[in-house]
């Protein structure tokens, strides 16, 4: 009896485990099938490097270079803001903050992560956007910069909490050793603890960036959604994700436009995959 129970449980767990892989493969295949259908009529090079995205004009122009650059620009800006602040904040929480404020800070950061992105986007729209407009004397505050700042807020909780974990799990003996050699607290952090936690911190950064690339709602609300080649961070841009979200509803199923949106999905997938593989390679090189 007991044996049968074991057997059933084992199989059940096996099915659960395999299910996730099964669904991933299924989704991936569907994405590939629908996306690659586009390349029967449009050259991949024209799609990737075309500078014009006019999906419903006649004939449709399906170049996504402005969208790719829009995504990269917003992501890059967000990374530039969130990585230094996030890592510094992790250092403060892990090493400097007194026990009481540490708990409060950690709770605050978790709360920040819990804010739905649409709410953040909404708040950004009514506060950040007018502010950017006024500060830079722009015709509109719906710019790549606004998107970057908002996305930085979204990447920060991930970066802070994972980097803090990484710093916290650095063996205490490293810090003791450094202090016993006469290092100051900051030297111990900078020269020993950060290098020791570097893999975890890198993972934190990558996951933060991953969240930013995939983010849709908030960017759609505050980047202005102009599918033009970005020339400045103070200009409206359109990201890959926002394009899919905004246009999927109105694209005719089976049309070129519809397939093009799936192809954008593939591009997004490739970018986030590359981010992960890049992080992985870097980690192994380090060791």
């Amino acid at each position, binding site marked *: 009896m007991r044996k049968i129970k074991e057997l059933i449980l084992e199989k059940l767990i096996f099915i659960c485990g395999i299910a996730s892989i099964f669904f991933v493969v299924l989704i991936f295949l569907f994405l590939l099938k629908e996306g690659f259908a586009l390349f029967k009529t449009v050259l991949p090079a024209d799609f990737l490097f075309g500078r014009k995205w006019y999906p419903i004009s006649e004939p449709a122009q399906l170049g996504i270079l402005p969208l790719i650059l829009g995504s990269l620009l917003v992501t890059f800006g967000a990374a530039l803001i969130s990585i230094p602040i996030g890592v510094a904040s992790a250092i403060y929480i892990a090493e400097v903050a007194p026990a009481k404020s540490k708990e409060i800070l950690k709770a605050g950061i978790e709360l920040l992560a819990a804010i739905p992105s649409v709410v953040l986007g909404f708040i950004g729209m009514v506060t950040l956007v007018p502010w950017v407009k006024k500060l830079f004397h722009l015709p509109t505050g719906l710019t790549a910069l606004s998107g970057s700042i908002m996305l930085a807020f979204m990447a920060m909780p991930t970066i802070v909490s994972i980097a803090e974990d990484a710093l916290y799990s650095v063996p205490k003996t490293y810090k*003791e*050793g450094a202090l*016993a050699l*006469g*290092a100051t607290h900051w030297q111990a952090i900078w020269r*020993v603890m950060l290098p*020791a936690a570097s893999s975890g911190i890198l993972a934190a950064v990558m996951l933060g960036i991953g969240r930013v690339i995939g983010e849709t709602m908030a960017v759609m609300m505050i980047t202005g959604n102009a599918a033009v080649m970005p020339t400045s961070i103070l200009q409206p841009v359109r990201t890959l994700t926002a394009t899919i979200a905004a246009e999927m509803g109105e694209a005719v199923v089976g049309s070129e436009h519809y397939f093009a949106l799936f192809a954008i999905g593939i591009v997004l997938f490739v970018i986030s995959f590359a981010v992960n593989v890049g992080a992985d390679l870097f980690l192994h090189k380090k060791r």
Partner: protein
Amino acid sequence: MDIKVSGLNLWYGDFHALKDVHALFCAKKITAIIGPSGCGKSTLLRVFNRMNDLVEGARIKGEVVIERENILDEDTDLVKLRKRVGMVFQRPNPFPLSVLENVIFGLKIHGLANKYEAEETAEQSLKSVLLWDELKDKLNKPALGLSLEQKQRLCIARLISVKPDILLMDEPCSALDPQATQRIEELMRELKTNYTIIIVTHNMQQAARVSDDTGFMLLGELVEFAKTEEIFTKPKDRRTEDYITGRYG
């Protein structure tokens, strides 16, 4: 450089960990501190480089004088103190950096040397712990890949490179096998010509083998402090005798 301890008391919260300790640790000698676990021997060692400051709720009273300076004073420069009083830990703790970076770590943080001098010092330090021949071609390899004994030697080299006067060793051989232990002990004998060495050990044979003076601690008290031969052959205190002969701890 001598260390003179008088009227030293230390509390962790309500726990009285060191009770009125008086002792004189002599320069260019190895002094062993022995006693059962929890007797306060590591705590005493950590007073000398103020590592107890890291423990929350620790309070100290008394005097520890190194070169006419009471290091327990509020305004003691901890960076200077710890540069002068180095510590080797129970578990070898090289940093997750290369061998070379480990050895010159102290030089770097104290801004002591340019690149050329640093490499020179690294070579001397590694030679003095007898690691140079083994590691001279592996200076850029990660230190975490070394054997335990090599790691412990590297940690000692890391100390020596900042030219301290006093070496504190907190059970430096407890993670090592007997052969490695023997070689580290030989190294200690060589080093004592230049340094004041204080070693905490739970291994009485080790204390008898390497030390010149020995202190026996029990429940936070320094019960007896004398020449090693005296402690091991004709201890004055009954409790010391009980411990040495194995009726204790």
